[in-house]
């Protein structure tokens, strides 16, 4: 069954000119809806966790706190993110390459398998049979149905990754595109390869753990930590690769950002693939199981080559915006290209905030805490969730939110409901998460532990006094979190309403209200001829970034140098 034999299965997108396959579109919709449901569950859990850690409210009892915290982690980091990434994989293969989906029926089977796995995990967690938190460190034990649910979900995801590769082969063979795949698809390929590595680690740890929960075999707690983090951290690198692809995608859609140099951008994606699975080490730096040479070598991702990749993307994405804008006439001064950018376009705003918070907060803190010795003053404190809420929430989730404002018109073919709310949503969410993650990081600097129900330690044999600043910092953290929750709530309201009750768009043209500017008035074509690749504005910005990085990194060495001598 070739594409030519089934012309009715395709429509042509009036905005992008891409040929969109009906099955691909339906699979994207299904996965996006599942992702949003998971986000809603995880979001409600987030608010409950936040209102408990904010000692002034201290909402939940201890057992429900850890239960809801488990639900928050699994619903967000596994179900929301991975369902959304499945949608991105179908988009980046079938839609961008004008192709059909390799095996549509298997695609649906995989989707329902993932839904089944997710429901099993949710059921065990909500009924109190899996109070083991996201990491489920052995020998803490959940019911075996929990591990089985995770395995089924992961198998489904692995099948979708295989369909993605199959679709690439189909597109190539049926010549649905010319030359090399576009950069956005290349980034998705990187994410998919990392997903295979990650899910391999997942199988290597969840299958033995499942058998352990049935009493069939033993699992060493330290080996568990090492292999589990091969899943746990590497899966965050799927998110990074997918997020960077979305940056390139949103840049292209909203302002027609260009690719400065394919070799550099693709090389940086290749660095992710090569060195990402070493990131497991970041979680074992102050563990008893491993020696310093292993820790130094692995935690540095083979001498920080994956960090280099992110620093390269931070530059090339931004410079691509600048060069594209300049080529369209916004050439005045250093920053006219940025000042006159469409800040009211929720897709554009989400992308910019995603880049800034991911880089400045998530990236800098992550590399610093992931330094072997500095980890002594960071491990298991609130500095760690402070870091990863800046990367995976303000970075990945925010980029995905921005993408949604293009997916709703282009794939669901609906107008965005409550558009004025949608316009401010990325701002609220980004500012809220920025405050939240910074305050969390500060609180962690005073040694406040993560994953802790009560930092007044009621019922403990000895009292614990934190620095008096901690109360204030935790209060500000709560306010930032609530602001972000408002932003998240608006996102869910807007997407659910648009998708189910939104006004349908006419098939031939995208005009009128409820659409981001990048869709109503697509970026002007770049006038023919030679264009300068000058990116001085970006160069200034990245040097500001580097200065912040160097300062934060060495301040932490200074903080470390005053604690007790340890060797």
């Amino acid at each position, binding site marked *: 069954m070739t594409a030519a034999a089934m012309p009715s299965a395709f429509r042509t997108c009036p905005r992008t000119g891409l040929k969109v396959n009906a099955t691909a579109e339906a699979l994207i919709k299904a996965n996006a809806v599942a992702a949003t449901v998971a986000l809603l569950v995880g979001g409600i859990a987030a608010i409950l966790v936040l209102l408990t850690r904010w000692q002034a409210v201290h909402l939940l009892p201890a057992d429900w706190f850890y239960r809801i915290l488990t639900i928050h982690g699994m619903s967000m980091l596994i179900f929301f993110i991975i369902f959304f990434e499945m949608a991105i994989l179908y988009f980046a293969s079938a839609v961008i390459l004008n192709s059909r989906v390799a095996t549509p029926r298997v695609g649906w089977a995989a989707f329902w398998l993932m839904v089944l796995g997710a429901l099993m995990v949710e059921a065990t967690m909500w009924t109190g049979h899996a109070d083991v938190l996201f990491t489920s460190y052995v020998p803490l034990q959940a019911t075996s149905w929990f591990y089985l649910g995770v395995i089924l979900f992961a198998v489904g995801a692995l099948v979708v990754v295989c369909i993605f590769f199959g679709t690439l082969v189909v597109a190539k063979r049926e010549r649905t595109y010319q030359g090399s795949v576009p950069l956005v698809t290349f980034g998705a390929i990187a994410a998919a390869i990392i997903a295979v590595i990650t899910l391999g680690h997942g199988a290597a740890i969840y299958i033995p753990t499942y058998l352990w929960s049935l009493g069939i075999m033993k699992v060493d707690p330290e080996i568990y930590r090492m292999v589990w983090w091969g899943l746990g951290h590497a899966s965050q690198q799927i998110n990074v690769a997918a997020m960077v692809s979305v940056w390139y995608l949103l840049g292209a859609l909203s302002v027609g950002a260009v*690719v400065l140099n394919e070799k550099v951008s693709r090389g940086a994606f290749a660095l992710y693939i090569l060195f990402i699975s070493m990131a497991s080490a970041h979680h074992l730096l102050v563990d008893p199981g491993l020696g310093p040479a292993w820790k130094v070598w692995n935690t540095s991702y083979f001498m920080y080559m994956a960090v280099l990749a992110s620093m390269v993307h931070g530059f090339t994405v931004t410079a691509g915006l600048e060069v594209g804008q300049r080529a369209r006439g916004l050439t005045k001064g250093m920053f006219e290209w940025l000042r006159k950018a469409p800040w009211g376009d929720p897709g554009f705003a989400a992308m910019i905030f995603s880049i800034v918070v991911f880089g400045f907060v998530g990236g800098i803190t992550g590399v610093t805490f992931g330094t072997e010795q500095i980890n002594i003053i960071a491990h298991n404190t609130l500095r760690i969730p402070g870091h990863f809420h800046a990367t995976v929430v303000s970075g990945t989730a925010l980029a995905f939110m921005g993408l949604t404002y293009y997916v709703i018109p282009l794939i669901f073919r609906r107008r965005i409901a409550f558009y004025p709310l949608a316009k401010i949503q990325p701002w609220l969410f980004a500012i809220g998460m920025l405050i939240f993650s910074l305050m969390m990081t500060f609180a962690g600097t005073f040694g406040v532990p993560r994953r802790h129900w009560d930092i007044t330690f009621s019922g403990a044999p000895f009292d614990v006094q934190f620095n008096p600043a901690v109360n204030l910092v935790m209060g500000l953290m709560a306010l930032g979190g609530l602001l972000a929750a408002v932003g998240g709530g608006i996102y869910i309201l807007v997407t659910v309403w648009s998708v189910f009750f939104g006004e349908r768009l006419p098939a031939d043209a995208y005009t009128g209200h409820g659409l981001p500017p990048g869709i109503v008035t697509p970026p002007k074509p770049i006038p023919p001829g030679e264009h300068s690749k000058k990116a001085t504005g970006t160069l200034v910005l990245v040097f500001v970034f580097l200065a912040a990085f160097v300062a934060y990194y060495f301040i932490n060495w200074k903080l470390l140098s005053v604690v007790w001598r340890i060797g």
Partner: protein
Amino acid sequence: MHTGLESPPRVWWTPIHGAERIWVSIAFAWCLVLFAMMPLWHLKGEQNPSGIRHTVEPTRYYQRVQEFINQYKVGEEAGIPIVAPPPGSDVYLLAQMWRWSPILKLQKGVQYTLHMSSLDVNHGFNLNPVNINFQVVPGYDYALRVVPTEAGDFRIVCDEFCGIGHHTMVGKLLVVDSTGAPIAPGGAP
């Protein structure tokens, strides 16, 4: 010029342009600095998580801690023995749901070999308010050479989730100065 949504021109392996070349070089140099700092700190720095690492049967470790407590016990607080080991010796800390034992009484400026392990699940050693953190894993003896550089009355908070009583898992660690004088706020035995 093309966007990331379009297939690139047939030949895209082209030389790197000015600003991009500058940034890639600087970023690479910075990555090398990041890498060099870790081995350098092993040579010159005084805080490293290396330690002496062994596997140990949890019950065997438990026995070792009991022997240690019996040998050097000087008192008791909140049902937890207080132990004053000789300067420079091997000292043992046991993590279990949901307590740290014993209460160690150490001397300022003296090096001890601090052993840590768990009887049951993962726990987290968080020395308050110094903010020193180590993972405590059952089956593994993590022995760190530690020099307390300040006298005082410290707490050990558990910072790895270990079940419903996690928040009650608070231990105590005392550091006296060289005269053995009672220490300031909180008061030592």
